[in-house]
């Protein structure tokens, strides 16, 4: 599955995939590099500017990877959340009664 997959079906998007893992790592790197990057850049240190640019690169990659998936999850979940609640309630009630 491509890391920059854009056409997620709701079914695919429900699963935890490598996209979540890579986006999470890039997200942490963005925060980490921004912390030292902004401070270093404000002090006009070369390492600060390098860290800041790397932070921005990580951020762009992160959004490119995770945004299509989040869109697919959101569109589907918000549309059906009420239906989920009612159906899950019905089925689990039946299952609990059956076990007793």
């Amino acid at each position: 599955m491509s890391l920059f997959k854009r056409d997620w079906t709701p079914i695919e998007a429900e699963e935890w995939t490598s996209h979540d893992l890579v986006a999470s790592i890039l997200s942490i790197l963005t925060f980490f590099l921004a912390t030292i990057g902004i401070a270093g850049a404000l002090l006009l240190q070369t390492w600060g500017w390098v860290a800041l640019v790397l932070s921005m690169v990580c951020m762009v990659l992160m959004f490119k990877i995770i945004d299509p998936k989040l869109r697919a999850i959101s569109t589907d979940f918000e549309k059906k959340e009420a239906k989920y609640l009612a159906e899950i309630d019905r089925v689990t009630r039946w299952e609990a009664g059956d076990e007793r």
Partner: protein
Amino acid sequence: MDETQLLVHFTPLDWMWTVLFILLMTLCGIIFYNLGKKSESDFFLAGRGLPWWLPAASVYATHTATDTPMWIAGVIYKWGLRGIWYSFFAAWTALSAFISTRIFRRSMAMSQAEWQSLRYSGLGAELLRGWLAGWQTFMNMFVVAWVSAAMGKVCLYLFGWPPWFGVTFFTTICAVYVLTAGYWGVIMADFQQGVIAFVVITLVSVWGIAEAGGPLMIVHKLTALGQGWRIDPFHFDGFWGLDADHFYTMDFITLLVMATIGGIGMGNFIDWYPEAQRIQSAKTVRDASYAIWAGGFATIFRNAFWAVSILAFFVMFPGIHAEGQYEMGWFRLGFEYLPAGLLGMFFAGIIAIHLSTISSHLNLGALYATRDLYHHYVNPEASERTLVKVGRINTVFLLAGSFLLGLFMQSITSWLIFALWLQAAGIWVPSILQVVWWRFNSWAYLSSWIANLVMSWLVVWVLPAVGVLPELPNWANFWLLVVLVALVYVPVTFLTEPDERPHLVKYYVMARPLGFWGPVRRDAVRLGLVTPSGDLKLETGR
């Protein structure tokens, strides 16, 4: 000059900025009054329909409090730029945005206490919900108290006002729009306050840096003072050690691990609880994720500005030893160096910073007291009108309690390091386990909370005070608490029954958690709620 007072002089223009800002904030309450009174969901979650940028601004505004520049000044003045890692705990949002935020938003719980009763079942879940609701009602009162105490300190410092006045006056103004418009008032005011705070923080910090001679002059002066190490965020006093006056690599690693991995869990940090409210108020899962991410990132951005401005303060005022004095560094940069006219804008910014935190915690404390205590235990049949009314009464109760607590608090930095992460150390792992492991049950989580409360006070305050334990560095306190509390909840997990399977299945299908949920997932497949490949049957219609 008295080191505890600055006594600034305001021109009419300065007072105009201040009064205009206060009027703007109280107008929020009037404008959004009709939206807030519609239902419990509106009063506490703004109807779950907000685009990502509104809760994001609220995340940023809420975590920019009057005490925040004090404690960041405290750690940066003491440790140099390596002290910035203390403020890195905000990075839990980096991972949370794509993991725990997603899971929590899907659960539909109105509060973290309510989530406990969705995730767990039976008596344990009820006890846990009651416990967390009671604890959060108190903690939100406590947060309002310490933030108000910080405002009292600022007002004493600037105007010589008695502390009780600074503690109560601005917080009371805030209560006006929280009482009238509920979360609608909070979120709309937070947006304005977030923007104002962001501009003012950037302006004052850059101004301070310029007053110190600019970035290169700060570096030059630090080097001349023999303090060049202060601009190195990775300058540590060895890999590890037990001297509380050193900053070890282990401190850095601990702060890094705690902040980032902690984002998988729910409830590891006191910040999670207000964020949980913002997550549920976002209109979609995507909006919730971006709200948490952007709010956290803006906080990281802000911290860096504050940190460098405190380095500027250091080169202008080196050699201050009293924590209570150097933690006022950023305020001094603003009030001692900004020109007349801008002073009022700065003070309006401080009020914005103050109100944004107070409003969130007043509303959040009332949410726990109303939704999880009154509505759940006292009056489950209460009408929406009654619930909004009770929400307002609880807001007043929190306000009064915070005034009493606020008048007793003195040092900000020590309190915050304790409250922000040491007090949460023992529940750090359990808060992750409850998200990723089906077998971790309500009794285990409840026991970890109780054990942590007892042990955090013992390890950090009581035992060192009576000489039983040496005063340990923060990293050692953290890991010691992690281990001690594990000695309680691990046996409890295996000696008690797992939560009821149908309850777990319901939670699994709704929230789709990450991690070790194999047996629960298999039951969900057997019931036809999830197909073997993982897709929800309801979605495909098969």
